[in-house]
């Protein structure tokens, strides 16, 4: 069914806005809540999210056009059939899209409109919070518009925000693994009551992983920072140097370059190479750089460690990575090869997935996760071009590090990946 997305009443007395740009094109599939258009009001530039999931069929404006509250911004064809057809008049076919019929239909503020329900007009109620509380929300990364206030008439208190942030940041350990390790949490469950089951003892690597993860999550306040690196140039470099690598019998991977970039970032931001000594209350800065690599094997997750990555060439790192992962899969790896790490990289790229929030290998303080590099349409110098984009996420121990540290560390890694020549020029 055809859904006309109109300029919502965004409040603050705003009656019109200027189209800055569409973030989607005709033919694009959009998901509900995905930003689809940037408009500028006299207060600010805002990105408006799509109210429904579907395919874009019309983008009636050009950048610079002025639109009034209630004017169509975008038409989305949804898959659902019009069960309860909204009382929207059928627009005349082939009508110039720039001159929408001046319908006066009740407008809803964005939050309500997003739910695609028909109902009486409701004003965009003012959020009951003081400027201090609003700032705290930003500090905690909490969307204040989504918080239910516990104060009188729904006033949002600082405590409401802290509660929301706590729930968001440290989700309770999920799944049977953690529960099983923490003993009696599942004690009363009669799984067999509802059907047949099969019981397998938790042991070996699986058990060890469960223990390590529970210890990590229960002691380390995790925060995950997200970023993307444009690895188009890096892939070219990798492809060019492949011949040399092949001659030496080494499989040269992007991961090896990433490791080198991380080594440099660890030197620049040594607190990422640290541990918190909980017994003495000291931060231990390690002056050696050993990077562990989370490796998926049939037996489970293993983390072999490449030592002194700061002193090794990218090709050397690649060679060691090849060797260690082979050993891990063969289960010929020695325990010593999995000890002494100061930082961990987990590369889930090949396995798929857009984003992930990794858990830190205790007692390290951060872990970097690289995801599948994919071609994406991105804007460079005002033009949409195809570039290869690799998502990266960095979980860090908020006791030792702050969000700003993570942003700086990540930016440094991204900068090196995006400009691989810099590794030659600027990396010791």
């Amino acid at each position: 069914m055809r859904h006309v997305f109109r300029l919502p009443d965004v409040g603050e007395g705003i009656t019109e806005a200027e189209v800055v740009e569409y973030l989607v094109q005709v033919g694009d599939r959009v998901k509900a809540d995905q930003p689809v258009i940037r408009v500028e009001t006299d207060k600010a530039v805002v990105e408006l999210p799509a109210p429904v999931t579907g395919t874009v069929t019309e983008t009636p404006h050009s950048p610079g056009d002025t639109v009034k509250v209630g004017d169509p911004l975008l038409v989305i064809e949804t898959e659902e059939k019009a069960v309860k057809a909204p009382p929207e008049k059928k627009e005349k076919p082939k009508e110039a899209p720039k001159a929408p019929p001046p319908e006066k239909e009740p407008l809803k503020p964005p939050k309500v409109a997003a739910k695609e329900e028909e109902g009486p007009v409701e004003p965009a109620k003012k959020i009951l919070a003081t400027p201090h509380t609003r700032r705290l929300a930003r500090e905690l990364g909490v969307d204040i518009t989504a918080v239910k206030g516990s104060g009188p008439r729904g006033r949002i208190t600082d405590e409401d925000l802290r509660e929301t942030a706590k729930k968001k940041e440290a989700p309770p350990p999920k799944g049977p693994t953690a529960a099983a390790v923490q003993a009696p949490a599942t004690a009363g469950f009669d799984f067999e009551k509802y059907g047949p089951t099969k019981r397998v003892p938790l042991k070996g690597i699986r058990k060890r992983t469960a223990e390590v993860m529970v210890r990590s999550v229960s002691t380390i306040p995790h925060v995950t920072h997200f970023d993307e690196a444009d690895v188009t140039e890096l892939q070219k470099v990798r492809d060019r140097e492949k011949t040399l690598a092949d001659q030496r019998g080494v499989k040269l991977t992007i991961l090896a370059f990433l490791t080198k970039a991380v080594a440099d970032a660890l030197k620049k931001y040594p607190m990422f190479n640290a541990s918190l000594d909980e017994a003495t209350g000291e931060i231990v800065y390690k002056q050696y750089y050993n990077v562990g690599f989370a490796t998926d094997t049939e037996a489970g997750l293993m983390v072999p460690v490449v030592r002194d990555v700061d002193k090794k060439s990218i090709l050397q790192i690649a060679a060691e990575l090849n060797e260690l992962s082979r050993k891990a899969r063969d289960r010929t790896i020695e325990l010593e090869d999995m000890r002494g790490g100061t930082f961990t990289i987990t590369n889930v790229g090949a396995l798929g997935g857009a984003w992930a929030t990794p858990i830190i290998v205790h007692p390290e303080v951060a872990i970097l996760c690289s995801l599948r590099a994919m071609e994406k349409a991105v804007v460079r110098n005002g033009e949409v071009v195809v570039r290869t984009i690799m998502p990266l996420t960095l979980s860090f121990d908020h006791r030792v590090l702050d969000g700003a540290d993570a942003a700086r560390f990540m930016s440094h890694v991204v900068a090196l990946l995006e400009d691989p020549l810099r590794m030659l020029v600027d990396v010791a």
Partner: protein
Amino acid sequence: MVMGDFAQGTQVAVIGGGPGGYVAAIRAAQLGLEVTLVEQEELGGLCLNWGCIPSKALIHAAGLKREIERADRMGIIAGELSVNLPKLMEWKQGIVGKLRNGVSSLLSQNKVEVVQGTAHLTGERSFTVESPKGVGRFEFEHAILATGSIAAEIPGMPHDGVLVMDSKDALELQALPKRLVVVGAGAIGLELGTVFAKLGTKVTLLETARTLLPMLDPQIGKVMERALKSLNMELVLGARVKGMEKRNGVAVLQYSALEGDKSVEADKVLVAVGRRPNTTGLGFEKAGVKLNNRGFVLVNDRMMTTTAGIYAVGDVVAGPMLAHKASYQGKVAAEVIAGEPASFEAVEVPGVIFADPEIAWVGLTEEQAKEQGYKVKTGVFPFKALGRTLTLGDEGLGFTKVVSDAEVGTVLGVHIVGPSASDLISEGALAVSSAANIEDLTLTIHPHPTLPESIEEAAEQAEHRAIHIFSPPSKSEKTT
């Protein structure tokens, strides 16, 4: 300044030393950043040198003259009054000088490097500064654009600084004009028009809009019209200036009014038809900083422009062109650069016009609140019912109005026209930005006898329980 080929590096470059720029510079320095500020004229910008501060000095002096003239009703009889305009300007200039020195020493105490000259962006991370001493090159990690605004002109009436003045010229007049025509009855036109009317000039205000101050609560314009009349100022609404002739050094303005074409003679003309952002010829495009179709720099809530690392604040971005907005945004930009969670989202910008009586407002008007779908409850309290007003020798023209959400009681707006409205509005600003309940205003003691009692009583009047005005609920309200 470093001359020649070597570019000087800085963490934060602030371009413009007005209330947006210098505040941003100091805040950034407080947060441990290394800051270079470029100013082409005087520190403090338009506000301190040729705007808010000097105009308020003149407004006070002109008001004082009028008070003395009217003091005989209190038994205070003064001799003959005269105005020595050069002396008044000298006193005003002394205030400006003191404040400018203050800004300068604050910047140096905060170790902000101040560079005199005109800045041009040359790329996403670099700019040049031209000054009589030469051209310096600079590179930055972050830049804050705070280049302010310039007075708009009217076609056919080019600014010459003598006959056709802008506000800057008017604040530096050395002789009182006999007849002054002010084109534009907005904040600047009303403020400066009032100054000259009180000092003895015959003032005519020409305004294109058919109502005075149409963006405000409609009653405010009505009060203001009466006030202008009592100052013998002539206000012509719906007046569109068509052209101007010079005859023997006198300006003759032709304008079309509601009742037909007319003309008016003036010894000076003050053009106060608004201001436009100063965003051209500064190399913004070389840095990829995009403007909207009205020439304002596009920014988001965190004051970021379309170029990463470059921020813009104050009159160059959309929104009211007010010093306190610029300063707030300057602080936001500095804090965002330093990694703090600052934002301009949902920030209330109070507006003030230092006319007589003063006008100040914050938040939504009753009409705006209704347009947004609120059920609105308002309370109004007239200043003439307040003891403090009368003891100040004020007749009590004006009122305080509180606009609230009838369903939950949230204060949505406060609108004041009356004595010291500029001082009173901060309580309204706190209430609106905190989303206070209207009961927060009625249940807070406002000391007696003071002007802020008008806010308490206006809030009470919304519930028909103001003590000092008789306003029982109507029958329909009683039943609820």
